[in-house]
């Protein structure tokens, strides 16, 4: 599903060159739930951004469904992100001036879908994460756990094959964190491929496979 070959990422300023990722080789199969762990600053988020086509590697190959995407245009990459990938972030990244329902609809705005079908899909996604009673609320009226569930609904509304979650439970207490993990496990059981960055060993153990990074290098 996602294949990374010899990925290297270097951040360069006028004075400093920082090697964020070095020789990363990962193959994530369809239906897998993979977690990525490592200390802060080891390149986990950078790796997730590269997998999610939000960032370009300095070197190496990315294949999504066996197709090379390095030469894709901005439009083609955006289409791929929109159709294939759902993102969940640690700090939710909801738009405070939009209602829960409108936030969840966002990925569908970049598809040719009618207002009614967008609305229906957003309602369905919110029902799936148990927030059907909060559709008209605004993000600042929700708890952290509820916000993350909205973010999950937004990630799954377009029915993507892959979900990339960057520390989805990082800002939540353990009870809320477990709730979110259970939703992700449920989505994985329904066939969604999930890659999750986490600091929590116990959560990582519940996934199929663990990738550890240290100073930008894949440890195992």
């Amino acid at each position: 599903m996602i294949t990374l070959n010899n990925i290297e990422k270097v951040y360069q300023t006028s004075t400093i060159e920082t090697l964020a990722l070095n020789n990363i080789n990962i193959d994530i199969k369809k239906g897998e739930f993979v977690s990525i762990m490592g200390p802060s600053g080891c390149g986990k988020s950078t790796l997730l951004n590269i997998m999610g086509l939000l960032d370009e590697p300095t070197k190496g190959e990315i294949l999504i469904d066996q197709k090379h995407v390095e030469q894709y245009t901005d439009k083609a990459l955006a289409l791929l992100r929109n159709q294939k990938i759902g993102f969940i972030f640690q700090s939710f990244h909801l738009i405070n001036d939009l209602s829960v329902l409108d936030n969840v609809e966002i990925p569908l705005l970049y598809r040719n879908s009618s207002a009614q079908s967008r609305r229906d899909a957003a309602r369905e996604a919110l029902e799936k994460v148990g927030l059907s009673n909060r559709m008209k609320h605004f993000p600042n009226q929700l708890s952290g756990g509820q916000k993350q569930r909205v973010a999950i609904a937004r990630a799954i509304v377009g029915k993507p094959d892959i979900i990339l979650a960057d520390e989805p439970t990082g800002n939540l207490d353990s009870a809320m964190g477990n709730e979110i993990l259970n939703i992700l496990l449920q989505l994985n059981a329904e066939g969604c491929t999930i890659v999750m960055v986490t600091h929590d060993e116990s959560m990582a153990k519940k996934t199929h496979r663990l990738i550890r990074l240290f100073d930008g290098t894949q440890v195992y």
Partner: protein
Amino acid sequence: MLQHLIKLIWNRKGSHLLLIIEIWASFMVLFGVMSLVTFNLDNYRESLGFEYEQVWAIDLSRNQDTVQTADKIAKVLQRIKSYPEVEKVSQMSSNSPFSFSQMNSSISRKKTSTLSDIYYADENFDEVFDIKMKSGRWYQSSDSVAKNKPVVINQKTADALFGTENPIGKTLDDNKIVVGVIDNFKAKGEFTKNEPAFFQLMWPRSEEGKIIIKLKSGTDANFEAKLVKDLGNMLVGWTVEVSYLTDQRQNQHNMALVPMIVFAIIAGFLLLNVAMGLFGILKVNIAKRREEIGVRRAMGATEADIQKQFVAEMWVIATFAVLIGLLFAVQFPILKVFDLASGVYWVAIVLAILIIYGLVTICAFYPSRQAAKIQPAIVLHES
């Protein structure tokens, strides 16, 4: 997408209120300026109805002289006609074309009346100004002995008094008879409206008014000096003043153009203010909304989608302002404020809308482009 943007702007209406007011004020001023410009241009497109090149107006003031003034003027006319430089000579009332003098009166016929500019002129007036007759003829001095005094009217007067009837040979309420109809007669210049005009025969040997002369091409200011000197010698104690109609026309134009320029400058400052406000607000907006831009890019928005979104948001804000402005602006054509044709206001509304949207698009373009170039991975990591 539009619905989504309207919702987003509406939910942020508090922070956009000042901008909406500013755009609304600019729209109203622009509407005023555009009404003025449209009105003047509309007038400008209509012909004057007469020729003024190489035409001079000679103003003779008797001052304290009361002795045989009619004879003196008759001699002056003879003298002027004798110059080889002079092609045609006419005598008319003081309200000569492009002068700042005006005479008007109500002309009526069978319970219909119209306020019309009145000109007293002799039989040569049409030749001096090269006025083309639309129907009928210009009056002659010999017509003065007729029972009904002859008059020439312009089409505007004919429309007001006769409607679709042919006015030639018909009499007015004061027994004057219409002998000719001319088309336009815009004595105050191209920028003025073509108002009803009415010409009647100047009494022969009249001591009043001005002498209008049409000169042969190539006649220069040397002749003016010679003319003033000669007339001064003939009319001792009188004041002789020669005015070029081309200069007088320019003065009339200035009267129309100055208010337009003043309003345009005010509108320009306001628009500049709005432009800077829009530019600044968008820059701040983009800085504040980097996270949102990152999220949208992650969710599948292309660079072009982000750019379009920010430009479209400005259009939505402008639309709110324009809609409020329209509530006021549409009253003008409906109520025919200032007695202007409603078409002038409609054109002004369309022009003001186009300028506002053009300005908003230009101001939104660069900041939106910057927003589109934001790297999602960086901004999502920052926040």
